[in-house]
């Protein structure tokens, strides 16, 4: 009698434990299932947007690389080619003249200088420009 009761008790105990484990696992699986269903919808969009960003970054990187290589070629040429150095100085001079002219126009518009002052300055710049342009054709050969 005693032995039989003990066996019954053991069976109940085991059943109870198995059921409890199942319940915990089921809860875990249900959570996983929900997570999987929600996130799968967004996965394709995420990967496509990443691929777009990657393509754009690669294109930007290629442009950066090209620009860096051009700058390096520029420096190497400055180092070795005296005419090119002169050409760079002249081109820089033209750039400055153009900037000066645009500033002079702004100042005239803002009435910070007179028309006479503006014209005198622009004439002076024009004569300098013609000298620079003449020299550019001499030094800035390809």
């Amino acid at each position, binding site marked *: *009698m*005693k032995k039989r*009761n*003990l066996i*019954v*008790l053991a069976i*109940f*105990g085991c*059943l*109870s434990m198995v*059921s*409890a484990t*199942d*319940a915990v*696992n*089921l*809860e*875990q*699986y249900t959570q*996983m*299932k929900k997570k*999987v269903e929600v*996130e*799968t919808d967004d*996965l*394709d969009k*995420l*990967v496509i*947007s*990443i*691929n777009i*960003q*990657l*393509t*754009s*970054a*690669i294109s*930007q*990187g*290629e*442009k*950066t*690389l090209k*620009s*860096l*290589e051009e*700058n*390096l070629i*520029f*420096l*190497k040429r*400055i*180092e070795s080619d005296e005419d090119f*150095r002169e050409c*760079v*100085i002249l081109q*820089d*001079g033209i750039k400055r003249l153009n900037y000066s002219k645009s500033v002079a126009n702004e100042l005239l518009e803002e009435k910070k200088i007179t028309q006479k002052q503006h014209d005198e300055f622009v004439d002076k710049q024009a004569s300098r420009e013609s000298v620079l342009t003449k020299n550019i054709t001499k030094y800035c050969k390809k």
Partner: protein
Amino acid sequence: MTKKILLISLVALSTNIGYADQTPSKPSPKPVVSSSEPTLEEIDKRITVAKDYLKKLPERISSTQREFEALAEKGNQATEMVKRYLTFSKQCSTAELSGIGEDMCRYASKSDLGTLIKSKKNQLTNAIGFVNGKLKGLQSELDKTDTIRDGIKVLEDVQKILMGTI
């Protein structure tokens, strides 16, 4: 003694009923896992790692893009610096300067154009190597994102099979 055993049995039964309340009776999903198959936890771990990797990728790409911008700007600055030096040196050699101008020319001439160019060339060469490396990395990422996505989907299918939902 018999009463005691019956009481204990009842307690055990009630615990069982408590858990049974939380579980749908049919179908009862049970993980089909043998020792040679991956467990649900192992699969979930891999899916999580792959998804985290993808989620963090946009920020990593943005960071690389910012590095590209900064390097391109540095490259332009390097040439501008050399141009400025050349122009100023030319002005120093041609214009009749005195006072402040003469003083500045004297100081500028102490720095050697050759050294300046050499240092900028090194910077640019390093930057080119860096960008090349980053470009290879980005291309490799582009090649594998689809594979990672497909891998996630396959593992999710395996997960569903193990959970008995398909």
